[in-house]
């Protein structure tokens, strides 16, 4: 019996060892760094190609690429952070940047500027997006902005193809929604209902001269502005020109379920780096419109980094990591491979080099990006801790309004109180 137990245990151990083996590196290199990003097949392919280029140019350093889809990325990232085992370089999102910086998970990049990291040819605006409290924590590897993507074929059909979608106002937008709904006999509604979309509401708030969070992280927006926003969508909903209420309660819809892709509506809100992805799922050609303006109001939209690369607290070889980061934005071989896939690059030379090879959808997004340059406002101040939860609270409050459980004014008052309470709790 003892024999069998010993045998059992040794076999177990042996098998386990054997199973562990395939992941051991084939041969040890002097230095190694890890790069972790969220991706898709196209992005993964390009990124691994860049890693190969880097490995070829820097024989002493090996880069291990780690990738997973967006939904799972943050779970894994949080786990690795807790284990103090973050990859040297991680891809960061604007929404999460402040959460990670304020908790001390990322390293400042300023000491490396001009000292391994060459930013001399980098647009200053996009650089600012990665700053927290005056220090650079994240390098912009692509910019984007809010966008209303519209179905060109349906605009044509409704006879409104010549709408000035860059300069239009909310009133014009409402008219367009009505025209489309009538022209298609209600089969295609004018637009998605943005009542639960905080990103669009934020544009509205800025157009009214306010901002959601103040510089010290408190909620500064007044309930009235949010109530007006909800009232605007409420009126359109009553007019029957928006997507049905029960498809308008989720601000995190997969791209495939969004109104314009599902064929329910002619206009949906996105981020501008998503235009190419939207087009891939659709048969009709799409165009890019700005979020409508307030007549005589301030600019609401802003250009923000769509993705960052950050150096983490756990990096053991920051110099190698910075070499890799530098190649990403300055090495023409690498930037050509990366293209526009992660957003518009912040280096004008890189943009110029890429221009001849654009696909139609890429051209739409670059043209859009150029057209909005002087119509956007400054980047809002960094979000405080708890901003992610405020976003969820906004969705819940908006849902109650869409379903008619509460009136816009009342919902807005409750929401603003809740939002401040969430921020206080997170402090």
């Amino acid at each position, binding site marked *: 019996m003892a024999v069998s137990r010993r045998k059992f245990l040794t076999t177990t151990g042996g098998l386990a060892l054997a199973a562990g083996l395939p992941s051991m590196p084939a041969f040890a290199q002097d230095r190694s760094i890890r790069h972790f990003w969220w991706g898709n097949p196209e992005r993964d392919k390009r990124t691994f190609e860049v890693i190969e280029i880097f490995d070829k140019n820097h024989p002493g350093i090996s880069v291990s690429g780690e990738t997973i889809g967006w939904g799972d990325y943050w779970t894994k990232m949080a786990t690795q952070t807790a284990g103090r085992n973050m990859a040297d370089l991680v891809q960061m999102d604007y929404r999460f940047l402040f*959460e990670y910086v304020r908790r001390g998970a990322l390293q400042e990049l300023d000491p490396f500027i001009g000292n391994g990291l060459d930013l001399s040819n980098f647009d200053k605006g996009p650089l600012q997006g990665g700053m927290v409290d005056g220090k650079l924590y994240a390098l912009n590897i692509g910019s984007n902005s809010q966008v209303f993507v519209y179905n060109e074929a349906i605009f044509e059909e409704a006879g409104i193809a010549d709408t000035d979608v860059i300069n239009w106002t909310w009133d014009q937008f409402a008219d367009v929604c009505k025209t489309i709904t009538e022209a298609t006999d209600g089969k295609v509604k004018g637009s998605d209902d943005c009542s639960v979309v905080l990103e669009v509401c934020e544009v509205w708030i800025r157009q009214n001269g306010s901002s959601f969070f103040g510089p010290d992280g408190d909620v500064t927006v007044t309930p009235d502005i949010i109530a007006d926003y909800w009232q605007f969508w409420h009126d359109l909903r009553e007019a029957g020109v928006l997507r049905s209420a029960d498809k308008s309660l*989720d601000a995190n819809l997969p791209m495939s379920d969004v109104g314009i892709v599902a064929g329910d509506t002619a206009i949906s809100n996105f981020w501008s780096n998503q235009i190419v992805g939207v087009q891939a799922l659709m048969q009709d050609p799409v165009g890019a419109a700005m979020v409508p303006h307030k007549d005589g109001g301030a600019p609401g939209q802003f250009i923000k980094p769509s993705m960052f690369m950050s150096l983490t607290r756990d990096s053991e070889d920051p110099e190698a990591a910075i070499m890799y980061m530098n190649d990403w934005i300055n090495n023409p071989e690498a930037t050509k491979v990366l293209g526009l896939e992660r957003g518009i690059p912040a280096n004008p030379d890189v943009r110029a080099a890429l221009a001849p090879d654009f696909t139609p959808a890429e051209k739409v997004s670059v043209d859009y990006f150029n057209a909005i340059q002087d119509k956007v406002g400054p980047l809002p101040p960094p979000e405080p801790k708890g901003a992610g939860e405020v976003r969820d609270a906004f969705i819940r409050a908006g849902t109650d309004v869409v379903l008619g459980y509460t009136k816009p004014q009342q919902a807005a008052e409750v929401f603003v109180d809740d939002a401040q309470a969430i921020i206080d709790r997170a402090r």
Partner: protein
Amino acid sequence: MKNTKARNASGYMFLTPWLIGFFLLAIGPILVSLYLSFTRYDMVGDPRWTGLDNYIYMFTRDRRFWKTLEVTFHYVVFAVPLRLIMALGVAMLLDKGLRTIGLYRAIFYLPSLLGASIAIAILWRQLFSIDGVVNQVLAVFGIQGVGWITNPQTSIYTLIVLAIWQFGAPMLIFLAGLRGIPKDLYEAADIDGTSRLRKFYAITLPMLAPVVFFNLVLQIIEAFKIFSPAFIISNGTGGPADSLLVYTVYLFNEAFKFFRMGYASALAWVLLVIIGLFTAIAFATSKYWVHYENERD
């Protein structure tokens, strides 16, 4: 005395792998999570002791905590019995000698194989959308459907339907259990002209009781812990107006979305107590309805 020792020796010998696993791999993390439940821990810095704060906040100030309990109980109350009845019914149907039985078994197990994959999430959202297949079928009968998943009144039922439809696992266990009932018992009953219903109550149920008990306990535990289907169908949000915010989805978001691992751990321990309570009740009542073949106690 010597006898006890010898019995202990062979008992512990067989339990050795489990004991090693429990004491080296399982108990540590469990105790750590208990400790974390008394702290504020954002997973980046170090945990900070806050005593009972998490528990006090949960019971006195957290409105979503009560909401998530309500959603979870709603789910458990419907999903557990319906899934078990479905599984048992189909298992009995499949227990009889049909030649193509293996095929049917595989077919009935298929939905469970698809599990909680992205594919199921997309399919479910399409099926139950306002112009989806479900409403098209209902329209044939003149019933006007709603957007089942996006309507806060109905979304939990799509989750329950999914649970019922994925009855494969308990079905298979029932099948294995039914195979353990000696055939001669039924044959004797047949000769006596016993009715089907009577056979079910007098033979099948008592003989199957240990397996029914297993499935009941496991389904209760799993239903309270339901995560993936609710998470994927609601895109991780807990659905419109928190109508799909089952307990573990809430817990997961508190931990990984809002960096409150301490609070999430406290939530976990409260859930553990709830599940433990229900399991204990099941075990306590089992004395009266579960009898094991030839066991004296």
